[in-house]
């Protein structure tokens, strides 16, 4: 009996010692684990993003290069997500533009879950009829937020692209190349249809085939090229009178739902080619100066 008491006591003490060591290490382990959950959520989000979102937003989230299921490059119809104006600062410009009162996380989670049906983004959350569970929406949101980094937001203002103030300063346009880049990579046809075929325009943007005739009459003092050049760089400068909404002609949305990032994405040559594809001319005249803001994608100033 004495031996048993001794063995039992030793076993009990050993258990206590082991537990003591575990307890000492516990704060570090807890921290590693709460981070691990987030890390794994982001990994899961990356997988969901690659399978569902990259088709429109690009695998790098910049809406620059998008591929369909068969691996062919197609136009990116989504907005860039790996972008300063969505991710940097506590109140990034895109939240401000929508009068969003909540945090970035809620903004992105809400957009993923409910979608933006008017702008072509489907609903993803199951509670709105989409395919993703709540936790998957959360994972994708954490993944998108994970693009926020020192390199992206940097603190210093990012040099925005500089555009010539007059469209006539662009190089000569090539309508054939314009027709190609109009579809890939810029994806204009997703909203505006093809210039030569009105039946391909299904909204939400207006069909551009009318512009060769009408563009110079839309705004007083603007040449056709001025009007198109400014509308591509600054989608809210002019709102076209008539858009297709759900297949029916109606007034265009204001503010415009057109992506405001073509100034960042396009080269001067591509710009000239697209305008010449729309207008059918290779040289452009200009009457007005377009004020494309310098440093348009500068990170917002922290309050």
């Amino acid at each position: 009996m004495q031996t048993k008491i001794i063995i039992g006591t030793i076993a009990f003490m050993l258990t206590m010692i082991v537990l003591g060591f575990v307890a000492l290490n516990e704060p570090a382990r807890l921290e590693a684990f709460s981070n691990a959950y987030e890390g794994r959520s982001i990994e899961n989000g990356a997988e969901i993003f690659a399978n569902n979102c990259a088709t429109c937003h690009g695998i790098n989230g910049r809406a620059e290069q998008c591929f369909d299921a068969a691996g062919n490059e197609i136009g990116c119809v989504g907005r860039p997500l790996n972008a300063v104006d969505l991710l940097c600062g506590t109140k990034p410009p895109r939240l401000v533009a929508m009068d969003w009162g909540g945090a970035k996380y809620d903004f992105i989670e809400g957009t993923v879950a409910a979608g933006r049906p008017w702008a072509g983004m489907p609903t993803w959350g199951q509670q709105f009829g989409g395919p993703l569970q709540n936790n998957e929406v959360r994972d994708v949101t954490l993944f998108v937020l994970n693009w926020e980094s020192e390199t992206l937001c940097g603190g210093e203002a990012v040099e925005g692209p500089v555009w010539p103030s007059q469209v006539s300063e662009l190089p000569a346009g090539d309508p054939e190349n314009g027709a190609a880049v109009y579809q890939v990579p810029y994806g204009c046809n997703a909203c505006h249809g093809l210039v030569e075929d009105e039946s391909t325009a299904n909204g939400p943007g207006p069909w551009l085939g009318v512009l060769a005739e009408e563009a110079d009459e839309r705004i007083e003092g603007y040449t056709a090229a001025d009007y198109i050049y400014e509308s591509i760089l600054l989608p809210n400068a002019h709102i076209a009178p008539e858009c297709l909404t759900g297949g029916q002609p109606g007034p265009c949305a204001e503010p415009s739902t057109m992506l405001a990032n073509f100034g960042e994405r396009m080269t001067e040559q591509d710009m000239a080619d697209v305008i010449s594809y729309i207008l059918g001319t290779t040289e452009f005249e200009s009457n007005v100066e377009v004020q494309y803001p310098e440093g348009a994608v500068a990170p917002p100033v922290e309050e």
Partner: protein
Amino acid sequence: MATFVDQVRELGLKQATIAKADEAVERLTAGMNVNDLRDMLRGEEPRRPNPRLRPHADGFWLHIRPSFYHTEVTHIYPTFRLGWLSTFMFVWETITGIFLMIFYTPSPDAAYSDIWNILGNVPLGQLMRNLHRFGAEVMVVVVALHMLRTFVTGSYKQPRQFTWVTGMVLLVLTLILSFSGYLLPWDQLAYWAVTVAVSAAEATPGPPALGENINLLLRGAPTIGAGGLLRFYLLHVLALPLLLAIFFFVHYYKVVIHGHSLPPGREAIGEDTAKRVPRDERTYFLPDIATSELMWTALTVLFLVAGSIWFYNAPLERQANPLVTPLHVVAPWYLAWSQGWLKLADKVFIAFIFIPGLATAFFLMPYFEVGKSRRYADRRVGLSVAMLFIALMWISNWMGSPEYRVQSSPDQEVAQELLPQEGHSALKEVPYAYLEPGTYGPFDAEDAPNPFLAAALEEFGHAMQQRSCSLNGDGPFERCRVIEQGDDVRYGNSFTNDAMPNPQAQLIIDDYQENMRRLVLVFSAPDPRNPESSLYSYTRTGYRHELSNYEEERRILQ
């Protein structure tokens, strides 16, 4: 009756307090005062009348325990303490389970993140979860061994047949209890294992409405969701433990009534002397059995704690998703035999004829196996059948294990080994800092930039060797065996009949986000008969975040 004040007047404060304390101890122990306890711990003989019997007669806790045992049954053999250990494991699971219940909500929205909360926010939470889950598996082993021991020593024979029946009920309850807890973390592992198991109910013979309704009853809806989780939770924490407790008391009452059977060689054939214990062969519960049980408690706790820290880690996969079926769904090991059997015969036959038939045979065995002798030499047939049955279970378990699973294509199998959708792999456990971006072939282990990656690449090479072959016999792979099946040609090696001929495989690691890398496995094998097209072509992408912590998960203590 003198009041305390009278006693102080008579004896003085000190003596009166001592007398009062002694009285309190005597009440708490239901009959033993401080001196009796001291004598007992010193190993001295009890006074007359023996105060150590009074807790059995007057106390609640010991009234169900016998006051003495036959000395022959107090050694390790013949009981191996397995019955007591089973009881202990039930108490242990109750205690650790209550701890986990505090932090758990049985709802699909909350359950999974609750488990992560236990792992990442609750002090000692991971340990507690490991203790509970490890304990559940230990309990299955202990209860099964207890049954085996009872069979081997013939302790199920008259008059203990009914004890055996209640013991069988307890074994079945233990298995169901363990499996019902499986669903609660609400991860992929849980969800799909339970979905597959419950789907057996659909095969219920009779009108289809019967199977559908049984299924509905278990799942709470056509698929397992909030209702099913709540049902499994209530089964796990309420219904099954309650049933188990009831049957435990019946079982133990029968054990006490009939006494522990002596080792088979110790009594004449056909006799049962367990209740006729000569005075000189008695070992009293107090103090000998009690200290022995306390010692085993301490040792078992040490084993469980150490095991949960160093040798066992409760898995947690991704959150359950009814739309994503993982590649290989497996039952827990203690039910793998049923999965093995399902590969051998029809679902209806296995689930509704074979397993219930076998269970009935087990339940009723003591009533038709009525040989009088419990001695081993007289029971050669019975013991041999038992050994054969154990061998059968062993093989069935292996057949139900992941090793014996249905194989998918070789490129996917290699990808699954290195970058499984769920669970661990050598590549997943390379710490983030050592996942050096670059392009690696399956045989680049020697040139790997660090030992972690080298270990993962070694696995890569090994997996490729198993699933690949070489058409002309040179290079690192075996020569292909060409297998013609009608128009179709497959290529085999000594491991599989479906190998990749002359494959190209690469692991590409690149930076994806600032703190996340992308691991891409690319496989391609051209069709030897038509080099233009490819026989196998597959890409799997995995992601690895800096904080995911796969490599640390298994170690609480470092």
